[in-house]
């Protein structure tokens, strides 16, 4: 039998979390689990006051974990993320799905997290501690506490690109997603749905370290699937994903992802 506990703040809610509990924000992950009879939890914890603020801070930009995809689309401060948020679900999902929840979304969801990883985001917990998103993701199944916000370093204009590959238009589940940050000296190439977690293509990043000219793009695409672990699922086989990943990365690097 489920129970629901409601607290005023996420700090209080974080203190109430424990074994067999889930924190609910937008509901797109937790309520699905409830409906489909997930027996791994029997307590739902929620907070009335959630942080939906989006704006500049000392690190660059701060996005409250309770911000929905619609909040992202309504904010001029994160205009570079509009392409990503708009590709998450339809309007109703975007009114519900939160940035914080996306960090925990399993394949084939979690496209927003792919973008955040490429942007070298930091995760800020309700207790004030923070860590890189990359290390956070490695331990996300064992997280104790609640995510309060993510911060994103300032980006160079035009340096961020994102592509979601779907079989169904205009909206379909992600067959894979690719986010690229062409920050000088520290480029990032991240694939979603090409492994159990959003994964950096570090060989491709090394190939782009000195710029993204045609030679570098060719080199990056040749090695972009090194270290990735795509799976066979109902959307595509691992073989297919490995074959098309360089094609989509090339398009993203050459012309922003247009076919």
């Amino acid at each position, binding site marked *: 039998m489920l*129970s629901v506990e409601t607290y005023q703040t996420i700090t209080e809610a974080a203190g109430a979390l424990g074994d067999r509990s889930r924190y609910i924000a937008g509901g797109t992950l937790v309520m699905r689990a409830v409906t489909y009879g997930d027996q791994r939890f029997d307590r739902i914890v929620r907070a009335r006051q959630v942080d939906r603020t989006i704006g500049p801070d000392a690190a660059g930009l701060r996005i409250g974990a309770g911000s929905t995809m*619609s909040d992202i689309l309504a904010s001029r401060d994160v205009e570079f993320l509009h392409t990503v948020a708009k590709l998450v679900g339809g309007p109703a999902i975007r009114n519900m799905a939160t940035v914080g929840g996306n960090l925990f979304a399993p394949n084939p969801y979690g496209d927003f997290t792919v973008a955040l990883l490429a942007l070298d985001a930091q995760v800020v917990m309700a207790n004030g501690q923070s860590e890189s998103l990359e290390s956070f993701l490695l331990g996300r199944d064992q997280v104790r506490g609640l995510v309060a916000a993510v911060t994103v370093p300032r980006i160079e204009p035009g340096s961020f690109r994102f592509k979601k590959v779907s079989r169904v238009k205009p909206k379909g589940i992600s067959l894979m997603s690719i986010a690229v940050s062409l920050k000088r000296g520290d480029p990032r190439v991240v694939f979603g749905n090409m492994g159990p977690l959003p994964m950096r293509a570090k060989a491709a990043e090394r190939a782009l370290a000195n710029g993204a000219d045609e030679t570098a793009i060719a080199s990056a695409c040749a090695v972009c699937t090194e270290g990735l672990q795509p799976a066979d699922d109902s959307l595509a086989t691992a073989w297919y994903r490995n074959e098309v990943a360089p094609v989509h990365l090339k398009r993203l690097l050459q012309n922003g992802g247009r076919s």
Partner: protein
Amino acid sequence: MAKTALTFTLNDAEAAVFVDPGAPLIDVLRRGVGDLTPKHGCGQGACGACTVLINGQAHLSCLTLAESVEGKTVETTAGLAGGPNLHALQDAFIEGFAAQCGFCTTGMLMAAKALLDANPNPSRTDVIEAISGNLCRCTGYEPIVDAVLSAAARLQGRTA
């Protein structure tokens, strides 16, 4: 586990029900207050058949924790018509054969209402985007898009 008292506004009327902890809003609407217009399709946010408006914004009632609508306003297709007069969207759907089996229709209507409330003069692309979270396996979507544009024109007092 004891039930929880829940009060909210449903289609301009006060609703007060006792809900099971963790119940999704669609169960409360359908079983608790007898509003059968939101349809239970996939239960995972893929089909949009359960779309309702919460405080004016489209939400999926199958993924909404019922207790989270305490004190809020919920609109469903049951509240679209004004007495004997159907909403312009409903008229346009009927006249344009935009409903066949009808299972997606109430979700489509609410997604379309959310669009027209925010954008009374949408483009075809706007309509396609607005219903992009709603699946229809019958119509091929074109009659639905046409009907929404027709309703928008009607509400604006012009011809589509």
